[in-house]
């Protein structure tokens, strides 16, 4: 009785490890976005999430994915804000130790980044990055968009066609 029980525990542990590895995970690829209560942009934001954060994919529905965050929040995110975690078959041995932090792996990629922008700015004073920073700060709220749609009879507030 004792031995099969231990065996069962062993296999269960191995299986659990693989289930964790193979569970469907997506990674946030935009700087910041929200996990929303319903699958629409004007819905309440339950959690704010950042680039590189892994999310458990629960179900999908017309462009939206139901996800669970690391903190356990369940809600909806638009499919264009995430990418499937890249499991590189050729690098499976490396993957074993990096799976737990897929987000960090994504963030570790080199590219045109802040460092390159800073270097470029140093040599191109005419490029008006301050104006771009100001532009990025203009962010309409979900409430403003909803009010605009409602007043203009747009989207779900529109009449028959």
């Amino acid at each position: 009785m004792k031995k099969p029980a231990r065996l069962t525990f062993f296999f269960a542990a191995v299986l659990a490890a693989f289930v964790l590895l193979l569970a469907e995970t997506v990674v946030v690829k935009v700087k910041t976005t929200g996990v929303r209560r319903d699958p629409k942009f004007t819905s309440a934001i339950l959690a704010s999430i950042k680039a590189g954060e892994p999310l458990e994919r629960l179900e999908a529905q017309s462009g939206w994915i139901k996800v669970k965050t690391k903190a356990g929040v369940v809600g909806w995110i638009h499919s264009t804000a995430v990418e499937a975690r890249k499991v590189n078959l050729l690098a499976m041995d490396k993957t074993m130790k990096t799976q737990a932090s897929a987000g960090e792996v994504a963030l570790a990629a080199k590219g045109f980044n802040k460092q390159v922008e800073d270097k470029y700015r140093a040599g191109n004073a005419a490029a008006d990055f301050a104006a771009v920073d100001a532009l990025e700060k203009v962010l309409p709220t979900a409430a403003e968009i909803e009010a605009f749609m409602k007043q203009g009879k747009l989207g779900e507030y529109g009449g028959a066609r």
Partner: protein
Amino acid sequence: MSARTKAFAAAALAATLALAGCQAIKQSAADIIASTGKVSKEDAQSLVKTAEVLRSTFAEITEEEEYYIGRATAALILSRYKPYRNEALSAYVNVMGTALAYSSDRPETYGGYHFLVLDTDEVNAMAAPGGFVFVTKGLVRRCADEETLAAILAHEIGHVAERHGLQSIKKSRLIDAFKVLGSEASRQFNSEELAKVTGIFEGVLGDVVETLVERGYDRKFEYEADKLALAFAVRTGYSPGGLAEFLTGMEERKPSGPAAGWFKTHPSPADRLARVKIETAALGAVPAKLDVRTARFAEAVKPLR
């Protein structure tokens, strides 16, 4: 062993075999390369590693890279044109643009969509990669109503959604970029790499800005953006008639001299209009234009009149 234990064991075994198989593939790839005798075993391993990280086309530019290309492109556009400062108009354009982007095929980009009216009488609209959308004061003045401005914003969102700006980057430049960018996984560049990458970055910006401001996109991209503009506008709840109305107005006021600004960077309005009419007819039942929207548009653009 109970049935449950057996099931566990079978699943665990299957998973182990799957992993073992992957490792074998990697090793055999390296072995095949090494077995040619032309490269050492170590070099063969690193060749396999390099193949994993090298990118080659614009489609492989990451969202974050697109964002930095877009920011610098926007900074260069804003070195030529100043923002038109009117908070109410800016809020109106941003709320409308964001609502349209939400109904587009790509509502989320790395840094999100941002809309700005440029303080110039030139008639033009352009979008930097990642979602920085610009419309000139001169162009807004030519819009008759909200449907028309919505059509223009939706057209620019179409360029962003399809990453048309990134497709103006020369292939040779991308190959150079990816050679440096893909060399190893580290976020920081050393000074030599940084100088090289920044040089390539400048070249990339040159390609994109020249296309947006001087040369214009390939006309197939303009037709595609028109088609998307109709779709995004209708999905948001607008009458698709705004695009045809705008193009008709542009055709009527076509300058007689050499083409400049919008007329230089876009195919002839008559040519686009013919296609837009066919595509609009194919949409079927669509929302109607509403007075409530025309009235708030008139209010928002009052300072420009």
